[in-house]
């Protein structure tokens, strides 16, 4: 098949995918999103010839628009625009999980700092304030006291981009020092790892240590349901253990990085992703 890879940076993740695709003799079209022009009716030639397009844009806005255009040209795109839209926004993400009955941390959204303050006081300390868009734990704040809350809300209201005027407040989950990242293809786990850190943000990008993790039945079920809740695709599902109550799903990511997962486990994630694409594409083309 001919696979288009939409990118603006070839990181190790993209390189692993490109190498895997080429080693299986698939034709690969590298599509630099910075150079592509998206017309309303006709796709750019290099895109039209693709059997599937893999969206590997890092920037959320690019990912959102590019996947919409590719989809409207009738070219199958992974992930699809609906999935991208839900996953790119933490509020939409939380709503989708909650509506699907997937356990997710208590969350409220407000549009002014006064109302956000009410929520924070209501949730108690510590709690977490997050931007609705953003990644790698950037601009997330763990709020330990009323004075910290006042300062952070004031900074956000004064300095923030309009997206930071949406205040997303979440309960702080007391987890056993680690969280779980699962990469899944249409709800089927490819690999899972825990990330452990002394810091409350156990993000691989922030120097947490990673270990392979064996998913139990409950976790398997949650991954499947969380994936379905956001529309399926190639996803990163973030879970936390909550003691007796099992797991809570924090969010589902649609531009998933997997090099850390490949390093932490024996699983060749790129190979599994390409396996999935190979089964998915004929199904979609004939559908």
């Amino acid at each position: 098949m001919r696979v288009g890879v939409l990118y603006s940076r070839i990181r190790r993740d993209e390189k692993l995918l490109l190498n895997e695709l080429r080693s299986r003799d698939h034709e690969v079209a590298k599509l630099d999103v910075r150079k592509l022009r998206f017309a309303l009716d006709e796709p750019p030639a290099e895109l039209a010839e693709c059997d599937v397009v893999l969206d590997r844009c890092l920037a959320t806005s690019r990912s959102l628009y590019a996947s919409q255009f590719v989809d409207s040209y009738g070219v199958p795109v992974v992930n699809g625009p609906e999935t991208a839209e839900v996953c790119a926004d933490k509020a939409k993400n939380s709503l989708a999980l909650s509506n699907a009955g997937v356990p997710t941390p208590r969350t409220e959204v407000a549009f002014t700092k006064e109302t956000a303050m009410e929520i924070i006081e209501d949730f108690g300390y510590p709690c977490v304030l997050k931007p609705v868009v953003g990644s790698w734990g950037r601009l997330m704040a763990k709020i330990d006291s009323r004075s910290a809350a006042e300062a952070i809300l004031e900074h956000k209201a004064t300095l923030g981009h309009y997206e930071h005027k949406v205040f997303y407040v979440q309960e702080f989950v007391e987890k056993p020092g680690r969280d779980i990242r699962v990469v899944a293809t249409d709800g089927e786990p490819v690999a899972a790892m825990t990330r452990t850190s002394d810091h409350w943000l156990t993000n691989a990008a922030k120097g947490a240590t990673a270990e392979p993790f064996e998913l139990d039945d409950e976790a398997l079920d949650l991954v499947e349901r969380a994936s379905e809740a956001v529309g399926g695709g190639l996803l990163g599902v973030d879970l936390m253990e909550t003691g007796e109550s099992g797991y809570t799903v924090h969010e589902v990511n649609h531009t998933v990085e997997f090099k850390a997962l490949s390093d932490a486990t024996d699983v060749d994630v790129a190979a599994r992703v390409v396996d999935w694409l190979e089964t998915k594409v004929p199904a979609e083309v004939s559908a």
Partner: protein
Amino acid sequence: MVDCPECGGSVTLHDDAETGEIIDCGTCGAELEVIGTDPVELETAPELEEDWGE
């Protein structure tokens, strides 16, 4: 071997380097983007943007 556009130090690339790939300069640590492979050409990688994925 190519010169780093930031510090002038020499950067060694893998044989399979490709356009769009991001590499680090071993000397100054700058993020560099491969913009051509034959011959190899490097440019300082664009800054991270505000709304990066994941």
